[in-house]
Structures are given as C-alpha cells and as structure tokens.
C-alpha cells in the first residue's frame, strides 16, 4: 500500500484505546492489586496478603451468595438449553406469518430487565394474577409467597431469566437449524420415525455444538445474575437478604458508603475465575462449531 506516517493507525485507535484502557484494563489490574489490600472507599489500602481470601473462606453471606448463584445455574442453564431449542423447532418452518411469531417471541429480549422484573413482580405478588388463577383453580388455599420467601423468590427470578432469555437463544438455535439437512428429516420420516424420535435422533445430534455454546453462554450470564433479584425484591434480596447472588453481594460490600473495596475486589477475582473458565469454554466450543460447519 501507499506509504503512510507511522502514527496514522494510532490516531484511528486513540479513542478506543483510551476508553478500553481506562474502563476495562485499568480497573481489572486495580481489582487484581486491591484484592490483596484492606482498601476502603475512603482511603486505606495496606497490603494484607491473603487476608481477604481467608476472610472469604469464613464468610457465611458469601457462601450463601455462592450457593444461590450455583442453584441459579443449575436450574436456568438446562432450561435455557432445552426450551429455546424446542421454540426454535416450532418456528423453524415456512408457514405463513411465521416471521411475526419469531419477532413476537423475541420481544421480551428487547425489554429492560427492570421492566420485565416489574411486570413479573405484579403477576407474582400475593394479589397478582398468578395467585388469583391458582386460588380460583383451587390449586392452593393461600396465595403463594412468590416474592417474600427467599427460595420462592429465587425460583421466581429464574422463571423471569428463562422467560426473557427464550427468544435470544431461539435465534441462535434458528441459525443452527438452518444447517440441519432437510433430507435427513425426510429420510427419518419415511422410515417411520415420529416427531419425538426425529428430534432426538436427527435434530439434537446436528445442533449439539450449538447446545453446548448456548449452555456456556447461559451459564456465564447466570453467574452474573443481579437485576432480576434486585428488582423482584425491591432491592432487599428477600427476607433477611437471604436471596443475594454473588454480584449482588459484591455491589453491597464494595459500593456502599463505607465500601470495602479490597474485600469486594477479592470476591470479584473469585467471580472472574468462574466466568473466565466458562468464557474459555465458550470460545473453544464456538471455534469447534465453526470448524464443523465449514
């Protein structure tokens, strides 16, 4: 190409480099350093070695948050691997009007989690529609405390996460289903395989890489759950704050008026190790998926 002054590329990159350095790499490095200090929001910052981590190992609230987050993963990830695939299967057709259905199913993805959380808070409140229907059908005698019992609150939040995520993962699956050869289905049909059998023996094996990818993506985002719990509990994390997630607890510890930056940073590092493992897994799976498509 034509000769160019050495600094021209850097001029193009300057804004992006400044923002990425100041808003990602700097804070990440800071997190790594402060995790080994007793830094507070209002000063301090003596090196304390592994003190924060040994404190973590004895912090009941942290383990509670860890357990809640693990439970979240255990429920949400399988649901978000399977249900969107079924939904994608449902809209993977050329019937008239199908485009409109796809768009409609995607609409919860567009809305903010705050909006979705408030909508479901109303539906699930003791006066809400869900309890009204359950009472009317005599499934329950008393309204269920969906939002005021910590376990039920967590389950309600999981429902919201899955409900909002269905459309997002459906679209990822649709792209994968487009690659499933139609002849395979036709052949199986001719051989007399029913719909369930065809789904298990033809569809699932061909979209398995995508299922793994969706699983890791859903896991990464479930590890970071926050807004659902905050909104559905009006910022209380349930009775006695028993329904906190890891991110919820980090925010509480690190960003209050007397924020314990060092301790929160140590927790952040633990969270990072978890998400990093999942991210690496996602990258590997994605690359493998691309290779098998090519």
């Amino acid at each position, binding site marked *: *190409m034509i000769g*160019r002054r050495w600094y*021209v*590329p*850097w001029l*193009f*990159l300057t*804004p*992006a480099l400044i*923002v*990425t350095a100041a*808003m*990602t*790499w*700097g*804070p*990440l490095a*800071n*997190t790594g350093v*402060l995790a080994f200090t007793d830094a507070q929001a209002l000063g301090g910052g003596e090196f304390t070695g592994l003190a924060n981590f040994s404190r973590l190992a004895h912090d009941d609230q942290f383990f509670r948050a860890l357990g809640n987050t693990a439970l979240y993963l255990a429920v949400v990830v399988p649901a978000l691997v399977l249900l969107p695939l079924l939904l994608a299967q449902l809209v993977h057709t*050329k*019937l008239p009007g199908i485009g409109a*259905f796809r768009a*409609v199913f*995607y609409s*919860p993805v*567009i*809305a*903010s*989690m*705050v*909006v979705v959380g*408030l*909508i479901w808070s*109303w539906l699930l409140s003791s*006066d*809400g529609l869900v309890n*009204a229907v359950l009472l009317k059908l005599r499934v329950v005698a008393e309204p269920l405390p969906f939002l005021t019992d910590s376990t039920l609150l967590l389950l309600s939040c999981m429902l919201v996460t899955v*409900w909002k995520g269905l459309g997002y993962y459906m*679209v*990822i699956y649709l*792209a994968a289903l487009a690659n499933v050869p139609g002849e395979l289905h036709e052949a199986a049909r001719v051989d007399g395989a029913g719909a369930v059998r065809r789904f298990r023996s033809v569809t699932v094996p061909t979209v398995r890489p995508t299922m793994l*990818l969706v699983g*890791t993506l859903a896991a990464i*985002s479930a590890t*970071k759950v*926050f*807004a659902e719990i905050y*909104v559905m509990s009006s*910022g209380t994390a349930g009775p006695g704050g028993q329904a906190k997630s890891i*991110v919820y607890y*980090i925010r509480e510890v*690190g*960003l209050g008026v007397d924020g314990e*930056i060092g301790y929160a*940073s140590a927790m952040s590092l633990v*969270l990072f190790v978890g998400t990093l493992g999942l*991210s690496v897994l*996602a*990258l590997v799976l994605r690359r493998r998926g691309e290779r098998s498509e090519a």
Partner: protein
Amino acid sequence: MSTATTPAPARAQQTPPARRTRRPGDAARYAGHTLRYLLLVLMTVLLVGPFLWQLLTSLKSTGEPIYGPDTTWLPADPTLGNFGKVAEVIPVWRYIGNSAIVAVASVVTNCIFGAMAGYALARMRFRGRGAVFAAVLASLVVPFEVIMVNVFLTVRSLGLVDTLLGVLLPGAISGLSILVMRTAFLALPKETEEAAAMDGAGEWARFWRVALPSVRGSLAVVGVFSFLFAWDDFLWPLIVLKNPDNFTLTVGLQYLSGTFTNDQRVVAAGTMIAVVPLLAVFFALQRLFFRGIGEGGVKG
C-alpha cells in the same frame, strides 16, 4: 378457530407438485400445521400475555379493582390518567431524556470510534497491531460485574459520579463494536479505497467517504445494539447515579416502584412508557435485528 387458522396456501407451498399426491399424507400435514399453530398461539400468550396484563392494568381507573374477585380482564372505564400520575411521582420526562442522551451518545461513540478502530485493525499494517487486536478480543471476556467496583473508583477519580458522561463511559466503545466493524471492513473489497487513494484521497477521506458508507449495514447493527444496551442497562446507572434528578429511566422505574405510591396502575403505566416505544421500533426494524444477531455473533 384452529381449522380457520390453517391457511390453504400453506399446502400449495409445502407439497412438491408431482411426487406427493396421497390424500392421507395431506391430512396428516394439515393436522401437523394445526398443531403447530396452536402451539405458536400458546407461546404467544405466554410471552406476550405478561406485557398485555401490565398494559391492561395501566389503563384501569382508580375506582376499579385490579385484584380480588371483582377484577375483570378489560378495563371497565379505560383511562390514561395513570400515565399522567407517573409524571407526578417521578420526573419521568427527565428520565426519558437522560436515557435518550446516554443511548444516543453511545450509538455515536460506538459507531464512529468503533469503526475507526475497526478500520485501523482491518486495513492498516503497523507494528503492534496484533497486540491491540488481542487486547480488544480479550476485553470481551472481562465481565463488567467483575470490575464494576474499580470502574466506579476510576469514574469517581475523574469526578464523573452522578453525571451522564459517567454513565456513558464504560460502554462508550465496546470491544464487540470494534470487532463487528473490523469484520465488516475486512469483507470490503480493497479496490474501492485504492481507487480513491489513486485520486489522492488522504487516509481519513478514504475511511470517512469511501469505506464507512460501504459498511452501513454493520453500522446500523452496532448502532441498534448500542442503543438497546444503553437504554436497558440497570446495574451501572444504579451504581453511578446518586441524585434522583439524574436517574435514567430504568433506575427511575425501580425508584418509582419503591416510592410511597403503592398503586400498581401507576407502576404499570411507568413500565409501559419505558417499553412500548422500544417494542414499536423493534417491530419496525425486526429484519435488521435478526440480521444483526447473525452478524454480530453472540455476546458472552
């Protein structure tokens, strides 16, 4: 209803002309289509119903029960009064304005600066390019939640707590925007810009007048997703904004539901104000969305 929704043209499309003429097969196909439409309608109810119930609640007047045995589906006396009441409890127009400022600014910074960086990475050869690319790529695996405490410290030291600029900054130029733009420029034939270079166009002119207009599709994708992300974001604005006058719409809505007003009609009206314009734009631009998801790949 189920038979009525099974349209005749479907069969004409699905049945290959000469090969399949057996009647029983057609009947099975009809049954299959009917079942599929039934399931589609069921899923529509499950996924749209909650929005609809919220909308209906927001339209019910104060005198009308919104729970208990006397509640009806449709508002007996539909009113827009609750939408007015939202503005009495929270400065909702101000919040909409704040959200719009942050979202539009995020579109501009992600599109322009993201494209500039993507262009440099795709089109220019220079020492350090690999390192920069690796740094951008690696930034994708750093979740904001992990660094939020320290991002807050940085923003505080810049004196930007409680400002909209502070809300904007962390998402102003995302690594994903840079990567999408880089991919777009890589796919562009080099000849266009080389012709412009022959005509004596400088580096900037080639980028701004030749390359950028050729990747309008990817720009639109980056723009739409930047807007959505900024408009919907909750955690970061919740952290960085302190004074209720400066809230964005998501933080303001959460604040509304926590204020003294325990009237679900007003909260419902507030959520509708936040989501209806967004859904309207989405349905208008849905093609772009679905293309964008394919192009932008998936975000972790």
